């Protein structure tokens, strides 16, 4: 007497769906068929999944026809010439941040030691340094992006 291996409904459905995808699963087709012969619930579920599989194959996902290049070109021109392909960009960024830290610490020490009298300069110069370094590291934070408004103007669906 032979014993039929038992598989859960989920295992069988998963294997059958994998077969629809053209993939191998843990079960043989014989295992799947044997289970389906006895399981109305799985036969019904698989019929639904097979229809869904076919419908998903008919969905056309590529209808948004927008050329990103005109806007990207501007952003790249602003942001990238000195950055493209920089294998050592991380080192430069770390160096820039360390350099900024040194300058700010030196500035603060100078303030304390020399007792600089101009409070506006004391605030503005470090802030300007931070903005300059961040701007250099991140590119133009005010770059215009292709917004939903522009998309609508372009007549995208």
């Amino acid at each position, binding site marked *: 007497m032979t014993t039929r291996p038992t598989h859960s409904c*989920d295992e069988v*459905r*998963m294997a059958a*769906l*994998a077969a629809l*995808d*053209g*993939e191998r*699963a843990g079960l043989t087709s014989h295992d799947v068929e044997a289970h389906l012969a006895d399981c109305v619930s799985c036969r019904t579920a698989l019929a*639904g*999944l097979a229809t*869904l*599989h*076919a*419908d*998903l*194959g*008919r*969905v*056309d*996902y*590529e*209808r*948004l*026809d*927008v*050329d*990103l*290049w005109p*806007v*990207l*070109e501007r*952003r*790249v*021109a602003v*942001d*990238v*010439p*000195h*950055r*493209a*392909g*920089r*294998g*050592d*960009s991380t080192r430069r960024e770390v160096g820039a941040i360390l350099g900024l830290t040194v300058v700010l610490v030196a500035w603060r020490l100078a303030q304390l030691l020399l007792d600089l009298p101009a409070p506006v300069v004391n605030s503005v110069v470090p802030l300007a340094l931070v903005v300059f370094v961040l701007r250099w590291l991140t590119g133009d934070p005010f770059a215009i*992006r*292709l*917004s*939903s408004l522009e*998309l609508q103007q372009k007549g*995208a*669906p």
Partner: protein
Amino acid sequence: MHDADAIRQCRQGNTEAFRHLVQRYQRRALAHARALTGNDADAADAAQDAFLDAFRHLGRFDEAREFYPWFYVLLRNRCFKQRARAGDRAGATGATDGLETVASGGGSPEEMHDLRAALDRLTPADRELIVLKHLDGWTYDELAQRLEIPRGTVMSRLFHARQRLLALIAERRGGAR
């Protein structure tokens, strides 16, 4: 121009070479981005940011690899960020234009409409898997490699994603009666 040549020229600061990459891959990127973000405007923003990320990081690109799978990781990250940013906005209005305009096919218009609406209600992770499988025809092994999950997990997640999709369609049809 081959991708490898374009990438080499990009590294030397040639933005025209980058144009080649953008125009070659933007439709595919937009399709993926729309599936992940759920609407056209966020998809365009995410794709644009991802291309810029790619340009910035081409120096770290391994020329032995294909461009798009490498780029897809950047795109995916941008889409999830964009989706998170847009989450409140979409949640507040309940509006989704994601796949409303995308589907066409052999099913009846009502069936395809139900499918589109159900796809749009899936989680981004479920929708991503389904789109990669059915739009690009990636195999389970490719999905496993590129999403960095085991093959068995791909199979299981795809199965459950499609079951959830069926349930959403059934729910929609039940509600329409």
